[in-house]
């Protein structure tokens, strides 16, 4: 199964011969497929310069890095490129994995080709969170979850998501709306990940509607619906909000910096996800990618750099020893809270995405 471009033929017809003229620069086409090149799309500072230089020297492979800032754009770029991708490795966040896979943009990896696969930390050995249809999709990099964040100067401790709906903080809360619909479903006692609703669309719709109505009812609590980690960081730092639902990484970075911020996992539970390096379907340089993965897992410093940059916990073994006490403390959580994390599942993604997107639009428009 491959993506194909439905309009190539029609467009060429429409454009006629003149297309040749514009296509002339393709003579100087940059080589995306060369034996000695590897193209990676990832976040800033995820791959330390020293590591990349060393890898290039050891293998003779030239590493080219395209910086991204957002999962949505990365997905749209790959989808637009279709069967002719210009990138070999992408950085996928767990909640997006199903979307990339539904559009057939990724290929599974073969762990036996990665000599250092065993260097993954305990819970990620074999990468159970990344197994789809019996195959492994991606090399796990970082582990994160959707936590509850509060400013300790202005709010009381709480072990429940109800803090997000406490009238005392009216106008001082914020959340990523699509994530929080799931969490609210969990908070209200439904299954926010839709695993229980396979083939039960009515039941699922009722659950989503309950969460939606609850959030609309409490819309006056909200200062802003945000999208990016830097937004919620800035809102917390500027004291525009006191309580927030946020991904663990951005919150941990504030804690590392010494802001009066606490990150916790409430008793109702939350969802977790992995960041992973994934091999793109039709990637031109698969062999180079495997060499890269092997080198990557052999280097805990890379894991430490990613943790410092993102605030998420590393999936590599031996990273903890490389972090400072402050960094370790910002990322560490009590065992009983960690146990409340439920990783996103594989089933029923279409129903989940469809219903949640709809609820998001309705809450925004309310």
């Amino acid at each position, binding site marked *: 199964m491959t993506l194909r471009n439905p*309009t190539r033929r029609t*467009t060429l017809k429409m454009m006629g011969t003149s297309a040749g003229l514009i296509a002339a620069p393709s003579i100087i086409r940059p080589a995306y497929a060369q034996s000695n090149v590897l193209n990676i799309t990832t976040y800033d500072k995820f791959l330390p310069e020293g590591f990349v230089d060393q890898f290039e020297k050891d293998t003779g492979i030239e590493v080219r890095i395209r910086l991204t800032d*957002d999962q949505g754009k990365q997905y*749209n770029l790959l989808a637009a490129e279709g069967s002719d991708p210009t990138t070999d490795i992408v950085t996928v966040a767990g909640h997006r994995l199903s979307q990339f896979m539904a559009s057939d943009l990724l290929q599974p990896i073969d762990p036996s080709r990665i000599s250092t696969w065993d260097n993954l930390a305990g819970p990620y050995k074999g990468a159970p969170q990344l197994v789809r249809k019996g195959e492994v999709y991606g090399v796990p990099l970082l582990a994160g979850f959707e936590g509850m964040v509060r400013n300790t100067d202005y709010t009381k401790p709480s072990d429940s998501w109800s803090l997000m709906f406490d009238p005392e903080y009216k106008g001082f809360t914020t959340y990523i709306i699509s994530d929080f619909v799931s969490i609210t479903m969990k908070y209200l006692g439904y299954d926010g990940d839709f695993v229980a609703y396979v083939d039960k669309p009515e039941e699922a719709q009722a659950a989503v509607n309950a969460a939606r109505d609850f959030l609309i009812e409490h819309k006056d609590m909200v200062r802003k619906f945000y999208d990016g980690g830097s937004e919620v960081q*800035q809102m917390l730092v500027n004291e525009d909000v006191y309580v927030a639902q946020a991904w663990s990484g951005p919150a941990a970075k504030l804690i590392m910096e010494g802001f009066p911020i606490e990150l916790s996992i409430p008793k109702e539970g939350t969802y977790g996800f992995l960041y992973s390096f994934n091999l793109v379907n039709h990637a031109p340089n698969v062999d180079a990618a495997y060499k890269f993965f092997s080198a990557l897992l052999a280097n805990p410093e890379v894991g430490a750099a990613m943790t410092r940059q993102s605030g998420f916990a590393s999936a590599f073994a031996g990273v903890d020893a490389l972090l400072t006490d402050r960094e370790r403390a910002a990322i560490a959580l009590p065992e009983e809270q960690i146990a409340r994390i439920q990783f996103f599942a594989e089933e029923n993604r*279409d129903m989940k995405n469809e219903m949640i997107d709809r609820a998001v639009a*309705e809450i*925004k428009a309310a």
Partner: protein
Amino acid sequence: MTNDVLTGDGQGAKQSRARYSSWIGKVAHSPTYRGTIGLLAENRVARLVVLLAVPLAWIAFFNIGPILQMGNISLLANYPLMDGDEPVYTFSQYALFFQESLYFVPFLRSVVFSIVVTAATLVVVYPVAYYIGKVIRPASRNKALLLLLTPFWAGEIIRVFSVIMLLANRGAVNALLRELGMIDRPIPMLYTYFSLSFGVVYLIALYMLLPLYSSIEKIPNSLLDAASDLGAGPLQRFRRVILPLSRDGIVSGCSLVFLTSIGVFAAPLLLGGPNTVIFPEIIAQLFHGSNDKWPAGAAFSIIMLLISLTTVGLFMRVVGGRNVKLM
């Protein structure tokens, strides 16, 4: 009136002539040029082809081409297509827009928002453009413009964050007010229509300033003198002379600002709040969301495109009046 305009701008033409004369002279005397021009001068069709060829080719390829791709996607039942799927064409995405208030209401909100922003920008920027174009000494004009131009090079996203620094609960304004003892608790200014408009005007004021300046600057001073010699007060002079003669600039500036503000994505949206959802956000959601809604997103973009271009077209006809002989 034509004559007045002539005198007003004759100077500009004269000043610039020197710059062009050298190489133009060389080109004009070369045999190749003479031959080509001879051919063109004799042949009306050839002249028309020169005028038409590049613009029409450009528009057809690069303006219409990509939009046709979007149009094609907007009619598909799903996208991306897998191998083996036959594309199924449908108008249902377009119907969706009109059936659901979910999409329709933010669209209306967006249009109203853009109109308000455009009007606000016009009111704020007009006096500034007039001041630079007519009040200060001509020698200082470029400097005055330059001063206003510089901030725009800092980049949109940086400027948005600088607005956040200004208006946040711990931002500069609240800190100042608290220092002065005027407030105890910070006034929430961010994430409202106020901050959104403040930011959008902040980001796009330039698109109003430059067209206004270029049209006000060319109003001949002799006309203004004549008006006051005939006893016109400042207000009358403005209404009867300046405003009508700067109409081109108003039309262009408003078009630019309206078109830019109705399509605002990303950066300015960081300043909006939970109740300021506008249409581009809905489109962004369709593309960025966790489900693939490219066809709906494409259809909505095309609807937005058609309506906003029609709005601008109507505006140009009504406000531009006789000056804009488009048809």
